[in-house]
């Protein structure tokens, strides 16, 4: 009896909410952990690339072999011909430590997000596009609205349109797994246990080049993502991803 009374008094102490959170707690927490990890991976990845800003295709490549392309930036190694008259300091020690530490946190966070998304049917409810939205007409209409910078309607504050759904699905189920895979394909130890990890890409240098292009796509996604959040109302959208609460009517004040 005492238990029941205590439960009642506890329940009344919590303010009653009528609307469900815009984003679930798992989505909010995993979003921000991933954001921090992505920043760490990007900074450390750029530092690692600076030690050899040349890219190759196939199994092997070095400064004595022709490159597929090279980035027009200075390098942190004197052995790389860059055309710049100076050499940047070597930052690979902490960069490599940070890259793999952040990768572990990102992968474990991603696993939590995927498992929870499957269990709570998050993907099916919020990310899988409806069949009727996947026609060329529907797609081109949404795309045209985007390109004309037409502000989103009220309903879109509570759900994603088909372009958003396809983009998020692509990033979550194609880009992130590709980054993990190509990252592992560069590991001589992983390649020794699972050679197919690297042979599917045609070699270790191909995997490195694809890893770089994956980064380019992820950075593009991040820029558009932030731009869209700003367009839709930065404060409201960011608050929704932090506290879970959103006010649809306050979109575009």
């Amino acid at each position, binding site marked *: 009896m*005492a*238990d029941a009374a*205590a*439960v009642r008094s*506890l329940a009344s102490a919590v303010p009653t909410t009528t609307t469900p959170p815009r984003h679930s707690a798992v989505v909010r927490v995993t979003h921000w952990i991933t954001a921090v990890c992505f920043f760490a991976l990007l900074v450390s990845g750029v530092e*690692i*690339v600076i*030690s*050899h800003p*040349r890219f190759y295709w196939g*199994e*092997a*490549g*070095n*400064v*004595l*072999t022709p490159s597929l392309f090279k980035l027009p930036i200075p390098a942190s*190694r004197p*052995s790389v011909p860059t055309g710049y008259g100076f050499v940047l300091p070597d930052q*690979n*020690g*902490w960069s*490599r*430590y*940070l890259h*793999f*530490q*952040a*990768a*572990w*946190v990102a992968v474990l966070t991603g696993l939590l997000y995927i498992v929870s998304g499957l269990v709570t049917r998050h993907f099916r409810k919020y990310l899988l596009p409806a069949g009727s939205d996947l026609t060329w007409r529907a797609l081109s209409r949404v795309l045209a609205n985007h390109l004309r910078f037409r502000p989103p309607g009220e309903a879109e504050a509570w759900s994603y349109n088909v372009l958003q759904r396809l983009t998020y699905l692509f990033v979550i189920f194609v880009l992130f797994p590709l980054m993990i895979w190509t*990252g*592992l394909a*560069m*590991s*001589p*130890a*992983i*390649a*020794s*246990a*699972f*050679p197919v990890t*690297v042979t599917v890409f045609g070699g*270790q*240098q191909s995997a*490195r080049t694809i890893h770089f292009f994956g980064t380019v796509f992820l950075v593009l996604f991040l820029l558009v993502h932030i731009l869209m959040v700003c367009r839709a109302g930065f404060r409201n959208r960011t608050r929704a991803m932090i506290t879970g609460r959103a006010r649809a009517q306050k979109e575009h004040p």
Partner: protein
Amino acid sequence: MSNVSRRKLITTGLAATAGVSGLAVAARLADRYGLIPPDHGGFYGPGETLTYAAQRLLTRHSLAREFPRSQISARPFANGKPPQGEDFKRLQAAGFANWRLAVDGMVAHPASLSLAELRSHPSRSQITHLACEEGWSFIAEWIGVPLSHVLNVVGILPQAKYVVYFSIDRDWWDSVDMADALHPQTLLTYGMNGGALPVGHGGPLRLRVPRQLGYKNVKYITRLTVTDSLKAFSPEGDYAWYAGI
């Protein structure tokens, strides 16, 4: 304090105790099976330990990829300068005839081996990829005596956990665990692409650890020390001790 919060406190306490003791048991097991790297402390310790443990579990007996002769790189890149010390220049002038490899530490029979003696042992030739952590790489044929063979000849003591290998260059050494030290592809390399190992690639003697990145493949090896602790051999620079990725 109400019953509910007391019950909650007890369950939380029990869960926390179970979690901590679970972690302690996991750490004990990991240490026993050689899954804790020497640089497991500090801010980057957790990531480093996860990488090392995961790769050790997945790759304990795996062999580095070997390639057909047609894939040998026409232009392998020799990174860095040869040693500038007088002792190296003197040895080089004599064609490395007086080069010696000392083997000491936790071994039954410490030894000092000449290159000719190393060549008289069973040799192994393998065409493997050498990848630098910077991002470049090449494929070459490497010829040498497996480190495991030399370790068997001198007889390692049961408590041995690491092999430290020293370059003739002062302040250049590194170490591997016994899984890599006894791995069949870990070679005391004296030949490359059919000839003697060029000085630029670490000649006359380089340790090739093909399942790890270039910086673990120390050049100009003059000494091996078998040990159960790396405390006296803190790794050079701020690079991760394990370089399987």
